[in-house]
C-alpha cells in the first residue's frame, strides 16, 4: 500500500502556490454566498409569516373572501320619518330617531373584527331608488330598505354571529328643515346648517357626526354619519357607516359620500 500512497501523491500533483488573487477570490465567493443565504432566510421567513397569518386569517370564523370585515345583515336601519311638531312660530321637527348600535350589554355577540379597510372601486350599476353612487366598497352589494339603501358584504357567512348594526353602511335621502337661524338637518334641532357644516365631500358641504350607541355614548369613533348637502339645494344624502370594522377614515367616508347623488 505504500506504493499506492506514492502513486496517489504523484497523481495529486504538486501543491499549488496560493496567490493573493486566489485568496481574494476565495473570500469574495463565500461573501456572496453568505449574502444570498441571509437574503433567502429573510425572504423565507417573510413568506412563512405571511402564510401563517394568511392561514390563521382564513381559519378565523369571521374571515370573508375579500379580506374585508364580515358584515352581517341584520336589521340595518332604514330612514325613519321624523316627527313633525307644531310650534307657535314655525314647524320644527324633533331629531330623527334612528336605531342606535347596541352596546355589549344589550347584545353580547361580538362585532366583526377590524380588517384592512375595503377599498372603494368604481360603480357602474345604478343603485335602486332615488340615490346612486359612482363608487362602492369593493365586493359589496346594495339592497333597498324602504327609501334607504343598505350596503353590505354579500360574501359574509353567518352574519348572525355578530352584534347588530356593526357591519352595514346605510344611505338615505333627507331634506333640509327649518331651524333657528335658517335651514338645518333632521339630526340637530337647535342649529342651522350654516353652523354645522364643517367638511366638504367633493364640492358639496358636509357635516360629520359620530353615532352614539344605545346608551348615548360615542364609544366607537369609526361609526360615523355624514350629511352631504347636494349643491345649493335642500336635498341631503346621509351616509351612515355602521360598519365600523371597515375602519374607514373620515376621508374615505367623505370620498364615498361625495360620489353619491340623486338620480
Amino acid at each position, binding site marked *: 500500500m505504500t506504493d499506492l500512497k506514492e502513486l496517489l501523491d504523484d*497523481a495529486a500533483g504538486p501543491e499549488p502556490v*496560493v496567490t493573493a488573487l486566489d485568496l481574494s477570490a*476565495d473570500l469574495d465567493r463565500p461573501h456572496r454566498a453568505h449574502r444570498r443565504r441571509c437574503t433567502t432566510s429573510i425572504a423565507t421567513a417573510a413568506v412563512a409569516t405571511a402564510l401563517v397569518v394568511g392561514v390563521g386569517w382564513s381559519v378565523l370564523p369571521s374571515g370573508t373572501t375579500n379580506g374585508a370585515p364580515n358584515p352581517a345583515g341584520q336589521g340595518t336601519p332604514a330612514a325613519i320619518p321624523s316627527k313633525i311638531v307644531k310650534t307657535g312660530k314655525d314647524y320644527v321637527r324633533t331629531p330623527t330617531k334612528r336605531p342606535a348600535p347596541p352596546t355589549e350589554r344589550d347584545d353580547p355577540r361580538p362585532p366583526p373584527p377590524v380588517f384592512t379597510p375595503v377599498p372603494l372601486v368604481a360603480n357602474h350599476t345604478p343603485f335602486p331608488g332615488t340615490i346612486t353612487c359612482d363608487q362602492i366598497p369593493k365586493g359589496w352589494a346594495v339592497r333597498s330598505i324602504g327609501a334607504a339603501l343598505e350596503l353590505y358584504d354579500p360574501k359574509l357567512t353567518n352574519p348572525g354571529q355578530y352584534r347588530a348594526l356593526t357591519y352595514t353602511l346605510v344611505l338615505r335621502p333627507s331634506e333640509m328643515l327649518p331651524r333657528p337661524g335658517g335651514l338645518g338637518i333632521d339630526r340637530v334641532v337647535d342649529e342651522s346648517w350654516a353652523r354645522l357644516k364643517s367638511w366638504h365631500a367633493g364640492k358639496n358641504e358636509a357635516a360629520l357626526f359620530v353615532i352614539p350607541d344605545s346608551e348615548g355614548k360615542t364609544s366607537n369613533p369609526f361609526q360615523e354619519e355624514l350629511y352631504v348637502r347636494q349643491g345649493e339645494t335642500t336635498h341631503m344624502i346621509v351616509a351612515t357607516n355602521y360598519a365600523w370594522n371597515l375602519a374607514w377614515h373620515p376621508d374615505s367616508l367623505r370620498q364615498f359620500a361625495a360620489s353619491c347623488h340623486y338620480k
Partner: protein
Amino acid sequence: MSDRDAEFLEYVAAHRGRMLRMARLLASGDAHWAEDLVQVALTKLYVHWAKVRREDGAARYADRILVNAFLDERRRMWRHRESTTEQLDDPEPTPGPDPAVRLTVLDALAKLPRRQHAVVVLRYFRDFDVQTTAELMGCSEGTVKSQTSRALATMRDLLHEPLETLESLR
C-alpha cells in the same frame, strides 16, 4: 476585514493547496472540477465558519464537504460539467515525476465506483483510519472496510498491467 474573514483567510492560505490536491484525485485529474470542489468546500466552510471553528474543526469539516460534494455530483445522472472543445484550455501538462503513471492512476481512480473512489483517496492519500473515514463519509466502519477491499482489488487489476507495461518501456 472582520476577525471572521481574517481567520478564514489564514485557514485558506494554509490549507488550500492540500485541499486542491485531494480534489484533483477525487476529480480524477480534472483540474477545473477540482477547483469547483474546492470552491464549494470553501464557500460552505465560510458560511458555517463560526460553528465549524467552535465544534468540529475546520480541516475535518472541509474534508467532509469535499467528499460530499464529490459524491453528490457523481451521484447525479446528469452532471453539470463543461463540454469539451477541440482546443485545449490548459495544454501544459501538470508537472510531476511521470505523466504516464499519473494519468494511469487517475484513469484507474475514475473507473472506480464513487464511494470506493472516495475511500481510496481518504485512506491512502489523506491517511485517515477506518473510523475517521467512516465519519467523513457518513457510513459504518464495516462499509469502509468492504469498500476499501473492493477498491484495492479493482485498482490492482487496473494498475498492474499498465504499470508493468510502462516499466518495461523504460
